[in-house]
């Protein structure tokens, strides 16, 4: 039978190879699914892997969706590296969007372009506040951060629903539960004419560099990762686990909040109950598939963005539902976890009764 043989040290080749193998497996299962649904598998795969990159406009749209995913994932990587399981980025994203939207609603025709900065800062603050709640409950009461951060997602959804259905509802909106459309001055500046790519993409790339420096060139970044890998060693070295907890959660909350602000003052342009698009959950997959490494996550966020766009295309062109995206996302993470076994173990075929 098949036996796992522990490697002396993790295989470098498989560290990089495993996400690729996982993608291959996902694509194969995807092709099988398309055939089972009576669709041409090649046509299906075209929706996911060719159309999203086939011209300049499509590439722009790819970046528009990859931006929030990457920003959230960068924050989550800090958490996961320090063994803090923040899975409520979706909630932090929503509260960030609410805070940013609150500022954007204050703007009127006479407001200057400077308003964009307070909008972004408010988003970061909102996300930090929401993640801070999780940190507080974990730090003071030892409450499990997985459950708390996730429960807070549901609370955030209700807060948003209350605001857009009550105090912030557009009086001219035909009674739809949504805020009025933000003034044009609040729009996050775009990079090029004819594409929706905004300075958010630049901020994301800056954050990639920032995270790299933080993780690999600062004492705080080291302390955080040692705490994640070997809590006892971290204590011995005098690194504070409480400080790491707060750092990790505030950083990831701030990142998710920033993503929320960029979305709500960017492509969306108003507060609606449809602000949460599952980016907070998809970003968990982005973080793992990108190996929690800043550069790796650039690639995985683009891949995940392809899944989003592919799902939308499959809906409009092949008559399938958009939820196909979720299926592929889940499959990818599953295959990745299975393939990751190869990083730490060698597969050995052992005959029964053999030595």
């Amino acid at each position, binding site marked *: 039978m098949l036996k*796992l043989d*522990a490697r002396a040290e993790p295989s470098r080749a498989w560290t990089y190879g495993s996400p690729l193998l996982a993608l291959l497996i996902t694509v194969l299962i995807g092709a099988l699914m398309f055939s089972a649904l009576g669709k041409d598998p090649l046509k299906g795969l075209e929706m996911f892997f060719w159309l999203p990159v086939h011209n300049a406009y499509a590439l722009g749209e790819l970046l528009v969706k990859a931006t929030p995913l990457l920003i959230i994932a960068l924050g989550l990587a800090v958490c996961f590296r320090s063994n803090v*399981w923040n*899975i409520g980025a979706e909630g932090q994203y929503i509260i960030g969007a609410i805070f940013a939207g609150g500022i954007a609603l204050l703007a009127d025709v006479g407001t200057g372009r400077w308003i964009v900065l307070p909008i972004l800062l408010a988003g970061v603050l909102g996300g930090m506040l929401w993640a801070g709640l999780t940190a507080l*409950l974990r730090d*003071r*009461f*030892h*409450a*499990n951060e*997985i*459950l*708390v951060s*996730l*429960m*807070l997602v*549901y*609370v955030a959804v*209700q*807060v948003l*629903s*209350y605001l857009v*259905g*009550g105090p912030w509802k557009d009086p001219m909106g035909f009674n739809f539960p949504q805020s009025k459309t933000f003034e044009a001055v609040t729009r996050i500046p775009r990079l090029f004419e004819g594409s929706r790519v905004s300075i958010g993409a630049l901020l994301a790339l800056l954050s990639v560099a920032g995270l790299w420096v933080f993780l690999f060139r600062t004492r705080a970044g080291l302390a955080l990762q040692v705490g994640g890998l070997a809590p006892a060693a971290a204590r011995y070295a005098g690194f504070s686990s409480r400080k790491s907890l707060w750092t990790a959660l505030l950083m990831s909350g701030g990142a998710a909040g920033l993503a929320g602000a960029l979305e709500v003052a960017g492509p969306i342009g108003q507060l609606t109950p449809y602000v949460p698009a599952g980016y907070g*959950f998809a970003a*968990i*997959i982005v973080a*793992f598939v990108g190996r929690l490494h800043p550069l790796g996550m650039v690639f995985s966020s683009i891949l995940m963005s392809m899944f989003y766009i592919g799902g939308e295309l499959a809906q409009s062109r092949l008559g399938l*539902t958009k*939820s*196909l*995206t*979720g*299926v*592929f*996302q*889940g*499959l990818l*993470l*599953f295959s990745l*976890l*299975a393939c*990751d*076994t190869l990083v*730490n*173990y060698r597969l050995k075929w052992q005959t029964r009764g053999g030595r």
Partner: protein
Amino acid sequence: MESYALLLGATLNAGTVLAIAALGLLINEKVGIVNLGAEGMMLCAAMAGFATVVVTGSDLMGFAAGMAVGALLAAIFGVLVIWLNTNQYATGLALTLFGAGFSAFVGTGFVQAKIPARASFAIPGLADIPWFGPALFRHHPLVYLTVLLALALIWFMYRTRHGLVLRSVGESPESAHALGYPVRLIRLLAVVLGGALCGLAGAYLSVIYTPLWVEGMVAGKGWIALALTTFATWRPARVLLGAYLFGGVTMLQFHLQGIGVDVPPQFLSMLPYVATILVLALISRKPQWIRVNMPTSLGKPFYPGA
């Protein structure tokens, strides 16, 4: 007074969904495995159960389908976690994300579907007692079976040899292995059984409780069930009690709306989630208390000979 009888009745009904799932997760955690995929298993099972009832018209077939789907997904999770040593949290999370997407995808055609009218489950005689009748004696058989399930679990875990082996696998897998028990197989069995119960809870939700299918309808109940095992410090009787308490919190929002409390409905909808956070913080306040009751190997992989 009559409205309180209905509230109690609704509480038992809502608590049953949580209780079945949480008892299943309890079995999981007693052998040392946390399955964060509860929400995903419940979603897939709810969809499968509902679709089966739409097609066959039989509730029992629906329950069976839900349990089978739950067990199958749990088995995949179990093999990954127990044999391939993948991270339990990440794998469970993958299951939840996959389950949410997959159930939405496959269930699209069933969103508007109707199932046969639900039968009345009144117990002859008892159901007509004023107040107690509507509160206690007009429920689906599964509501009463859930109480039996909890009792059976208590008997099994604390009064039988097999139960002792089960608990020892969670407390000290190394010792159980040294004594010659197949630790990984026992863990897999417990995970599959837990998955089947989560599946049953999901099917009860879509076939009896609501009864309908919409995307994401489990709405965090799988996560609340996970929290319940901690609230109950891993004791079956307390799991049951906690489930009814949370069923009550869920129902309270409708009751408060019914008697005209002037609070925006969104704040009432938050109640179960906020209550979960508050109780979790209260229970976890003393870390020693959790540590004493928690299965020692919870969340830790075991690989014989490693």
